[in-house]
Each structure stands twice: as C-alpha cells, then as structure tokens.
C-alpha cells in the first residue's frame, strides 16, 4: 500500500514538473522576439555560453576524430577498404557524434553554469527585486540566455564535426598513410548536403532548445538554498543528457529510416 502511494506521488510529481516546464516554455517563447531588441544582452550571453565552451568542444572534437580514425582504420583494413575511412568518419560525425557529443558537453559546460547562475540569483532574491522594479525577469534574464544557447550550440556542433574530420585526416592520412585523395573523394561521394549536414543542423537546434529549456527551468525553479542550487545543477546535467540521447534516437529513427 505504501509503495503504491509512493508510486502515485512520484507520478503526480513528474506530471506536475512536465506541466510547469510547458508553462515555463510558453512564457519564455512569448518573450523571445521582444528580447532581441536588446541585442547587447544576447551578444553577452553568446560570449559567455559559446566562446567559453569553444575550447572544450574543439579539443574533444579533435580527439574524437583521432579515435574514430584509429578504430575505423583497424576495422576497415581487415576488409581492404581503408579508403572508406573518410566517409565513415564524416558520416559518424555529421549524423550523430557532432550534435550529440557537442550537446552533452555543452550541457555540462554551459547548462550547469546557467542553472547555477539563475538559481543563485533567485537565492539572492535578485529575481524578486527585478519584479519589484517592474522589470520582467523572463525577458531580461532568461530570454537572452536562451538565445545564447540557441545560437551557440549549432555553431559548436558544426565546429565539432569540422574539427573531428580534420583530426581524422591527421591520424588517417598524415600518420597512418591512407591515400588522401580517396579519403576526401569517398567522403564527398558519401556525404549528402541536405540529408546529412542539414539534419545535423536540425538535430543541433533541437538539442539547443532542450538543453536551454531544461537548464533555465531548473535554475528558475531551484529551491533558494545552497543545497537546492546544487541539486538543480545536478538535475540539469542528468535530465538534459537523457533528453539529448532520447531525442537523438527519435530523430535518427525519423531522419535516416528508409
């Protein structure tokens, strides 16, 4: 009986969270166009969210490219088709790893800092003070940050893919000695501009919406205590990572099914 009650309470809690997230999203989206009029704020957020994540994204992309090239080479050389390394790496990166790994790293690097920042603003009653002064905190604080995420993540995902392909070229062509011409020409024959690169951009935008919404929501609804902020930060990473992976599966099934 107790277990049943617990289950019921848990379910209701989750439903409540989803409902609150939806209301939050509607409020946020309503303020999005208006917040663009103060583009300086958006610019500041892109700098804070995007530029500071650039290093970790670029370095991870480079190493993912290295590893993909090494592992791919060891498998492909068994079948005598090591020239297919280029197309394998490019498809892996543009279709899946670019958007997904960039979004996961982004949730850890930028999502957490957004949650902590807004949670602490709330703990310090800055948000309440803004409301007192008649400044809409959604428009002034949340919307520019959401724009920052929405613009930064697709850029970062593209950079991740490009740097990864370059890393694969370094290991595959420069170090192992796969033929460079075949590496690029097979890649160019195998990668499609719309179905691969276009879908990669769509994925990155969807992930940006998910990560942005979750990290802002968690920060905005964090309990205004040190413990509450730390919990909210943890939840941001866990929930947005799971959302990214789940959404990725759904989108892959829709985009690349025959």
């Amino acid at each position, binding site marked *: 009986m107790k277990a049943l009650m617990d289950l019921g309470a848990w379910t209701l809690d989750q439903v409540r969270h989803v409902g609150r997230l939806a209301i939050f999203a509607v409020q946020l989206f309503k303020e999005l166009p208006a917040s663009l009029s103060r583009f300086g704020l958006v610019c500041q957020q892109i700098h804070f969210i995007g*530029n500071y994540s*650039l290093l970790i994204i670029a370095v991870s992309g480079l190493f993912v490219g290295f590893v993909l090239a090494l592992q791919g080479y060891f498998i492909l050389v068994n079948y005598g088709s090591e020239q297919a390394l280029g197309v394998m790496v490019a498809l892996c990166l*543009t279709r899946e790893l670019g958007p997904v790994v960039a979004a996961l790293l982004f949730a850890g690097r930028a999502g957490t800092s957004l949650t902590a920042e807004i949670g602490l603003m709330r703990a310090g009653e800055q948000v309440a003070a803004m409301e007192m002064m008649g400044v809409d905190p959604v428009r002034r604080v949340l919307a520019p940050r959401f724009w920052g995420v929405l613009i930064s993540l697709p850029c970062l995902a*593209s950079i991740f893919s*490009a740097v990864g392909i370059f890393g694969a070229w370094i290991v595959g062509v420069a170090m192992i000695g796969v033929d460079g011409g075949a590496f690029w020409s097979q890649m*160019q024959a195998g990668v499609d501009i719309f179905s691969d690169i276009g879908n990669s951009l769509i994925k990155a935008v969807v992930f940006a919406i998910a990560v942005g919404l979750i990290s802002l929501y968690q920060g905005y609804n964090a309990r205004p205590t040190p413990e509450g902020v730390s919990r909210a930060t943890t939840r941001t990473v866990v929930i947005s990572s799971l959302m990214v992976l789940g959404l990725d599966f759904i989108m892959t099934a829709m985009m690349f099914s025959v």
Partner: protein
Amino acid sequence: MERRSERKRSVELMVGLFVVMGFAALLFTALQAANLGSFTFGQKSYQVEALFDNIGGLKSRAPVKSAGVVVGRVESVTFDNEMFQAKVVMSIDAGFEFPADSEAQILTSGLLGEQYIGLVAGADEEVLGAGSKIRRTQSAMVLEQMVSKFMYSFVENKSKE
C-alpha cells in the same frame, strides 16, 4: 565609461569571431565533406525510361555511367504493372547525347559495391531525347540465379559423362 565600451566592443568582436567560426566549420563540412561545389542544382537534364526484368538492388539516386563516367542519376524505380517489369526513369545531363539504340545495363561496382546503370552507346543516327525509351536492356546479375544456373549445368555435365 571609456573602458566599459571598449570591453563591450571586445565582447562583440569575440562573439562575431565565434559565429564566423561556426559558419566556417559548416561551410568546410559542406564543401570539403559533402562536395557542394559539384552540386548540380537546377542543371538541365532530360529523362529517359527503361524496362528491366530484374533490377537487383538498384536504388534511386544511383549513378548512370557511360564508359565509367557519371552522365546522370537514376530518378525513380517503379514497378510497371502491365509489363510486369521494373521501370527505371533516369535523368541524363543535357550535355550528353546517346544514340537511340543504346543499351542500358545494370552493373555492380566492385564485388560488393553499389549498383549503377551502364549505358553502352549504339550506332543509330537518332539520339535519345526527353521521354524516349531505351529498348535494349540487360538485367542485374543476381547471385542466386547465377549459382543455380551453374549448379544445373554442372549436374548436366556430370550426368552426360
């Protein structure tokens, strides 16, 4: 005030740099990985049809080659319910002309590679135009049929001995 605006300007510069890098990365993947340069958007082409007994694993967007050079793409593969054959529509770049009695074959690149259509030029004076049909076709080699043919002839030879 002076210092603040300078700081703001450097932020704007960094953001601009970041966004440009994002676009450059996208452009790099588009040009270098997907070969946007050779993307034939809106290039003129004409469509011809051919009926095949068996198309094997031919898919739309497969290349149409003549003497090994890509001259077009397979537009669609459908089933003709009157002839009970596969109808393949291919679009050939307008720069190439082929005699009306050319032959279309379904070939495989390499042992395990993808299938494509090979056009062997005929000797007719007339050329293929939009909507014309290629009459002489050769179906895809299906491995099971080849094996079973081989087995039959093998058994026949054995029984003759």
